[in-house]
């Protein structure tokens, strides 16, 4: 990113405030946002530096509504502006406290104590790292690098206010629910005709149910059961009953038809959504899966698609039905008698209001109940898995008492829900009954005085309609929550679909189906988290066909190096080439084909052993599979299994030991036949005996390939042509085993440590 783009990301209202204080934006080298003023009070504080000074701009962001098309705009209520020269400052660093952190300046004069510059809440600390890096680079005489990854968007581009959660780029002020819905509707476009048919049926059946009291009740009372109407009583009653039955049957048939159509559309739309999410997730880079929120994301995908499913199966049709019913009933009521209808109309807002209050109260009660149940079940599973410890400490009785506490709270919550239900619903019924009574009274008076042609049948029908009005009212008062939940779910799903992979294929990928295997890393820098470089300026080259061993302490960055070689991540700086071509330009299919990884995390998929060995090349013949298994020293134990190569492994399948699984994964890599082989602590989890067996398998695998091996046990690396010792992201030593031993440096130290440990065990035995 250029300096211009970087600076253009300063929100407009802040840039204006800065300009008003005589600072040119173009002179700024870096900026950062913090959230407290000097006294530790919350404020919106911006920190900048140019070549001479550090500036603080303190004030409050305020979102204002404007009349224009962009409805919201953030303004800055200015409080203070300070500047301090940074001539005598050597570098900046962050000191973290329990809930807050502060930025301190180290002085050039070492005798001078550090100076506190500004305080902020802990969450801000991670977001200031680029500012600090820019500053420290500036002090070292290096130009500021504006990398895309570090400067994530913290501000809503539309209204300029800060995202409440920067990882979830949704501005609560500007979110447009309509557009999400529109996009969701896009998934229905293949089913247009079916949908039209469905809604037509929906309308017909609603009309039926709206008209049925009119036909049934009114005809029965006024045309049949009214004294003085001369008619063949049995025939008329029969006719009315026949009409009622016919209407019922017709609406039943239509209902069945509707359900069939819904079943033909919605599951497929949800299927479509799930498939798209899944393939979107496959496309994403490894870093997406290591980020901390993956777990919740995965469970949410299922819940979210279910939310959408139920809204469309149940919610959306009900909205149509209930809205139609509501309007239809009102029309008929007004058609029958407008005076009585007015009484009802007055009651509607009151009822709507009551429904909302009741729903809110119940949601809370149900939520409490739900949490109590969740607590109870998590306590149960906690105590089940801790049984050995509970017994060892003889705590059975106490645990029983604790459980009775959880269970008691859960029971109390149940009681509250059921008490509330038995109080509120009858109360609501009472209010409805009162309305009915008023209507009946006024209607009765009207019948007696023959006002507006009121008859007994009419009044009966009218009250029947009135009672029909309550259920759509209840539904409509509540559906907006449901709708909001559906939109939320859809939004989250679209977020995954829209996520851009960090590692993406270049536009004109270089095809390299056959690699030689020369690997070159030049001045590579890499960080997972901004401000914490794992690899700093590392250069390393591996000749084709050679084996390089990477040695170093835990956390030195060894695994990161091989992850970068395999391009599971992209470097922040420098480059990695294979046969002289930058890995960023190589077609990913060729990368995956030519680089094989055997790591200590062994993952075998659900399926047979043969399928797993064939994973890289499903077309491999059985001969090839057996040959690979033999090379990996896996054939013998596979043949000892009753189902041989057809043994099912993975979740729910045959249990294999770690060493056996590792040998299968080696066989899998042999079938892949990669030119470059990465062994990331392949034998770390195994005992020495198993390791020795696998070593042979690995040795067989390495023939004719470039190998990069990481190992804790230095003995594992005895065949390496050359060793690289890594410490804190840097290569500190490079050479053959003999050279490094002679040098008596880091490698020598590590070697002697392990050698000593072995000697000790020797003595003990």
């Amino acid at each position, binding site marked *: 990113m250029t300096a211009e783009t970087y600076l253009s990301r300063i929100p407009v209202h802040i840039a204006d405030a800065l300009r008003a204080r005589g600072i040119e934006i173009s002179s700024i080298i870096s900026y950062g946002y913090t959230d*407290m003023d000097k006294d*530790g*009070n*919350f*404020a919106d504080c911006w920190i900048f530096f140019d070549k001479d000074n550090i500036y603080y701009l303190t004030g409050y962001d305020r979102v204002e509504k404007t009349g224009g098309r962009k409805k919201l705009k953030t303004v800055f209520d200015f409080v203070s502006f300070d500047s301090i020269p940074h001539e005598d400052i050597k570098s900046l660093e962050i000191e973290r*406290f*329990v*809930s*807050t952190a*502060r930025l*301190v300046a180290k002085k050039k004069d070492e005798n001078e*104590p*550090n*100076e*506190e510059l500004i305080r902020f*809440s*802990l*969450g*801000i600390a991670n977001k200031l790292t680029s500012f600090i890096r820019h500053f420290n680079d500036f002090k070292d005489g290096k130009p500021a690098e504006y990398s895309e990854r570090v400067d994530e968007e913290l501000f809503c581009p539309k209204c300029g206010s800060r995202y*409440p*959660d920067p*990882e*979830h780029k*949704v501005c*609560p002020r500007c*979110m447009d629910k309509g557009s999400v819905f529109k996009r969701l509707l896009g998934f229905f476009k293949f089913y247009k005709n079916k949908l039209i048919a469905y809604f037509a049926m929906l309308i017909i059946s609603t009309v039926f149910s709206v008209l049925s009291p009119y036909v049934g009740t009114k005809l029965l009372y006024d045309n049949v059961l009214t004294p003085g109407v001369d008619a063949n009583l049995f025939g008329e009653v029969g006719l009315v009953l026949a009409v009622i039955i016919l209407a019922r049957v017709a609406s039943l048939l239509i209902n069945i038809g509707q359900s069939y159509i819904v079943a033909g559309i919605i599951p497929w739309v949800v299927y479509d959504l799930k498939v798209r999410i899944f393939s979107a997730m496959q496309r994403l880079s490894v870093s997406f899966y290591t980020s901390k929120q993956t777990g*919740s994301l995965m469970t*949410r995908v299922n819940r979210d698609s279910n939310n959408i499913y139920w809204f469309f199966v149940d919610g959306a049709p009900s909205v149509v039905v209930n809205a139609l019913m509501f309007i239809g009933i009102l029309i008929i009521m007004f058609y029958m008698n407008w005076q009585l209808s007015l009484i009802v109309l007055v009651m509607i807002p009151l009822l709507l209001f009551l429904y909302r209050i009741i729903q809110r109260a119940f949601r*809370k009660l149900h*939520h*409490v109940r739900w*949490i*109590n149940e*969740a*607590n109870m079940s998590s306590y149960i599973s906690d105590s089940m898995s801790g049984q050995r410890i509970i017994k060892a400490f003889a705590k059975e009785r106490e645990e029983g008492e604790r459980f009775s506490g959880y269970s008691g*709270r859960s029971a109390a919550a149940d009681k509250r829900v059921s008490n509330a239900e038995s109080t509120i619903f009858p109360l609501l019924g009472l209010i409805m009954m009162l309305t009915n009574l008023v209507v009946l009274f006024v209607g009765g008076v009207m019948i007696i005085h023959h006002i507006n042609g009121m008859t007994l049948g009419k009044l009966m029908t009218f009250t029947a309609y009135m009672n029909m009005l309550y259920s759509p009212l209840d539904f409509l008062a509540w559906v907006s929550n449901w709708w909001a939940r559906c939109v*939320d779910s859809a*939004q*989250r799903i679209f977020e995954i679909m829209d996520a851009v992979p960090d590692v993406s294929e270049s536009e004109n990928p270089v095809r390299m189906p056959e690699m030689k295997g020369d690997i070159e890393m030049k001045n590579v820098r890499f960080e997972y988290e901004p401000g914490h470089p794992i690899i700093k300026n590392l250069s390393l080259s591996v000749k084709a066909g050679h084996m390089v061993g990477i040695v170093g302490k835990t956390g030195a960055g060894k695994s990161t190096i091989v992850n970068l070689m395999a391009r599971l991540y992209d470097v922040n700086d420098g480059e990695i080439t294979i046969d002289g071509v930058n890995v960023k330009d190589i077609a990913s299919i060729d990368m995956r084909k030519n680089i094989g990884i055997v790591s200590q995390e062994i993952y075998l998929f659900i399926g047979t052993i043969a399928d797993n060995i064939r994973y890289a090349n499903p077309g491999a013949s059985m001969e090839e599979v057996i040959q690979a298994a033999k090379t990996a020293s896996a054939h013998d134990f596979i043949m000892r299994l009753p189902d041989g190569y057809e043994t099912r492994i993975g979740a729910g399948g045959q249990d294999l030991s770690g060493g056996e699984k590792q040998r299968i994964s080696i066989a899998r890599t042999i079938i892949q036949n990669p030119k470059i082989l990465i062994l990331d602590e392949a034998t770390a989890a195994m005992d020495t005996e198993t390791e020795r067996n696998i070593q042979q398998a690995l040795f067989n695998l390495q023939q004719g390939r470039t190998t990069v091996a990481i190992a804790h046990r230095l003995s594992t690396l005895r065949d390496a042509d050359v060793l690289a010792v890594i410490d804190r992201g840097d290569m500190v030593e490079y050479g053959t085993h003999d050279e490094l031993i002679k040098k008596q440096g880091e490698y020598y130290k590590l070697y002697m440590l392990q050698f000593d440990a072995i000697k000790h065990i020797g003595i003990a035995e």
Partner: protein
Amino acid sequence: MNDNIIVELADLEMIDVNEAKFAPEKGGYLSLTYKGTEYGKVKLNRALPYRAPDEYICVSDKDGKEIGILRDLASLSEEQKKIVSDELDKLYYSPAVTRILSAKDRMGFMYFEVETTAGKREFAVRDASRNIKFIDPDRKTAVQIRDVDGNRYIIDDFMKLDSSSAKKIEAFLI
């Protein structure tokens, strides 16, 4: 060696207040001279930050090695006590929520607008039932809220919160 001892307990150095001298230094840190040794910059940590914020204070040197445990601030002289409490207040500074102005459930996040002892603040909470909880479920007084950035907000006493504020979070506090 005595055969009855099966576990040799670790040494527990309770700081002798008569031999300890804490002093505030320029640049905002605390130094300690203890039993004749000058430790320079030291760090303080509360062992019981909620139940007994002034007792069991671990004092460690700048490399994180523990020098000893300060049993109770009350045993210090007035002057020393003030120095240590000021440092603790700074380290544990955390604005307390006094009122909850609004709580909105959007997109599975709770968006809060609150008043704190340090002014107004807006923040978002993910997974509210897990991130809003009583610090001590047995006593049900102080409430802790963690926002998406990892910031912690404390409500000193839930029972003293006004009812409209309490209603907004009570569903999460079980």
